[in-house]
């Protein structure tokens, strides 16, 4: 702003000693104001009137498809049977993903290392509702013990529950101590199959 003082026209009124210049509003102010209005008009037209525009839901759906494909694209849908879970128990990449799922959803009750808290100890040999690895999947999916163990069916996808079951199976014997064993001791899991060579 390079106004000289002399050029500022002073208005001929005064309020308690306060006077006002009759300066014009700055040009850049008008330009920016108009630009925001024009931008807003076309933005509204494009996103709210145009039926083809993306919505929050369509963006989310696209992300869901893309991410699911990225993670599970190579294996497709995992079936919750013993063979698949056993295979996953040896899959380092999926176990790593499952450990994140465990940390975010299970560790609150079962502790970050699986030794139990309000939830049972997952590292010992005693189980309440599990005899085989696929039972772990069933417990995760539908819950157990009334409301004690929640059902995760609506929260985690089937693939996520399968790899989580594999991860939980592997917790057995991974630590000592923690909450006292509950339920009955069950035979050891079948050995992890050797990874398929391609």
């Amino acid at each position, binding site marked *: 702003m390079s106004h000289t003082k002399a050029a*500022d026209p002073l208005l001929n009124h005064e309020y308690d000693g306060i006077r006002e210049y009759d300066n014009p509003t700055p040009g850049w102010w008008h330009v920016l104001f108009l630009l925001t209005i024009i931008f807003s008009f076309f933005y509204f037209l494009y996103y709210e009137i145009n039926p083809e525009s993306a919505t929050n839901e369509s963006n989310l759906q696209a992300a869901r498809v893309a991410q699911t494909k990225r993670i599970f694209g190579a294996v497709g849908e995992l079936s919750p049977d013993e063979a698949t879970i056993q295979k996953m128990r040896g899959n380092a990449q999926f176990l790593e993903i499952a450990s994140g799922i465990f940390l975010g959803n299970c560790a609150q009750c079962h502790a970050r290392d699986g030794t139990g808290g309000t939830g049972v100890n997952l590292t010992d040999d005693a189980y309440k509702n599990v005899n085989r690895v696929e039972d772990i999947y069933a417990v995760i999916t539908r819950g157990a013990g009334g409301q004690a163990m929640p059902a995760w069916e609506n929260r985690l996808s089937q693939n996520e529950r399968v790899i989580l079951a594999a991860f939980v199976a592997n917790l057995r014997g991974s630590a000592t101590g923690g909450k006292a064993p509950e339920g009955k001791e069950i035979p050891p899991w079948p050995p992890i199959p050797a990874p398929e060579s391609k």
Partner: protein
Amino acid sequence: MSATSSVISERPAHASHDAATEPDPLHGVEVRPGPMEQFTYNDAVVRKFAFAILLWGVVAMLVGLIVALQLVLPVAAETVVGGVRPFAFLDGLLPFLYETPWLNFGRLRPLHTNAAIFAFAGNAIFAAVYYSTQRLCKARMWSDTLSNLHFWGWQAIIVAAALTLPLGYTQSKEYAELEWPIDVAIAVVWVGFFGVNFMMTLLTRRERHMYVALWFYIATIVTVAVLHVFNSLAIPAGALKSYSVYAGVQDAMVQWWYGHNAVAFFLTTPFLGLMYYFLPKAAERPVYSYRLSIVHFWSLVFMYIWAGPHHLHYTALPQWASTLGMLFSLMLWMPSWGGMINGLLTLRGAWHKVAADPVLKFFVVGITFYGMATFEGPMLSIKSINALSHYTDWTIAHVHGGALGWNGFMTFGMLYWLAPRLFQSRTGALWSRRLAETHFWVGTIGILMYIVPIYWAGITQGLMWRAFDESGALRFPDFVETVMKIMPMYWIRVIGGSLFLLGMIMCAVNVLMTWTLRPSRYAEPVQSAPALGAVYRDPPKPASRLHANTEFGHRGDVFLQGLWHRTWERLPVKFTVWVVIAVLVASALELIPMVVAPMFSTAWREKNIPRIASVQPYTPLELAGRDVYVAEGCYNCHSQMVRPIWAETKRYGEYSKPGEFAYDHPFQWGSRRIGPDLARIGGLRSYDWHVAHLENPRMVPGSIMPSYKHLSHEKLDFKAIQRRVNAMAMLGVPYGEAVKGDNAAQMARDQAESIAAEIATQGGPTGLEDTKMIALVAYLQRLGTDLHAPAPAEAGAAK
């Protein structure tokens, strides 16, 4: 004119003599001036408001410091450095800070915000309005009785807030938490005392035209009244308990229409009015541009109203409303900056004074923070930026830049200018100019040390929440980890906040010491001015300045010369009516399709808030538990809104749908995630986990949540449940059998017993069946579960 003590020279803010003084096309003629009249100003009430600013300023900032400390102390106490716990001495203090119900963060945080906004800034507004309006109108405030009723009524409201909020009486709508009897008192004091007193002063003024500061005061008074009344509409369910008449999405929409415009019309327009009076007075310079003040005033008043939904981006609010909120926020950028430009450019040619005068220093930094905050506001309202910033500390940093920088510093500048004049200081000056200078620097450093780390914390946590690792899994699935990360920033904030509080105390000392310099009796200088005559002739309508143009063009040019506005300025009622129209039209265009139409039209409802058949009212026990959730202020740290964003659905589950909140009077979406979202917490933990966690949240290592052990001892008032269920039924919640006789209490007892039994079988504590704990846990276990529940048969849904 010397308005106060003769000691203080108060030269009119004339421009330098070389300024051009052309004939003024806006200058009309007083045809027959009224008789000369003598009058005095009521400065006694301004002095009272000034003291109130000091008192509540210290209180508000002290409570802010306490809540800031509450966020860092538990982690500090556990810190181990080289095998030693340097903060072990906190062990004795922590139980007090974390287990005392009325000291809990959730109850104190609203006290902090309410005290800062309505007590500190509120009294500053009143001091400014009462001092400047009298001088701008050349008239004493219309009624000394109303002035005093206003002062004492407002302080009583603040005291009521300071008592009820820590005791857990709250409506849980942010910055509108106070319960219904206090809401009624606010309406009476604001409209009946303040509004009437102010408008009557305008009507009995001796100055023909209203100066721009008065326009902003008018906008403040009428709009705050409208916002407060419509947002606070509630059905009482007890002496200090009520339910918002709006539910879920609609409640959220009304709340943020209010919340955003509380920022606009409580923290912005009155402070712009303050600026327009005190800045040219202190700088002794004319205001930069009269035209700019007209344009930015009207654009601000009309556009601000629309911007509220930018607080609800990606929520269950319909997308069109959120888009409108964003776009009007963008368009608000220049109207807001109009005020900043007019403020800063008024100081052209006076910068040497800024270097010498602490008052102007405060004003310059205050206006600069206003400019920064009103650039940042539109920026944060852009959806993609908001997706990152929302629910994080970025918002907290943004509002503190505005509150400490703009509202705080404008208030301090005003106080330092006012103090020697109000108290008629014997030295003609402030007690200590140096202390004011020191306050300026301490305060400025305090603000920077507050906001910079908190911006950092907000962006850090926002990025952590959305980070994925190479495998496509959340990189930080454990929420606590993202809290731990920002603890060092929280510590710097504590230091910055302490500095700002220290500055506030310096200000209080300085003003009080200036008060000791007062004369034994305050002089009341007698003013004289002619009363307004009955006849005023506006100047002739200006001719078009254009040469060859259409009729439309010529008319436009005449319009742009602004004589019509000059005429409005001498007609306070007409001016006020136009402000009301601007505010109401803008509100109606947004609120009618969203809030009103769905109440009457199923088609509108289905378009904006589609019903979900499986969503049912809370059981009586869950409703009581929801009241506990509200009373404890859980919403201050936990949102209940999963946004349709991939990282968010991964962390919290399916995104929230509008229909899920059909019975949420009031909504509990929250605005900050100091803890994780709870929208889908129902059924995700066992009952006994909830009990154990609420009693001792720090069983989750690193958690900074306070303890709610007291809920396991406090008895639930089963008898009160019936009244609450009935109030909800009045609002249209289909409670069926529960509203009959005493059914609700019995239903609640039955459910409480079965949950208590369940907790016992899970190995939890026994004897909880009649406590608030059971109710809260019942509510938490219900949250977000209806979406996947089977829809009840049609017969069961009806009564």
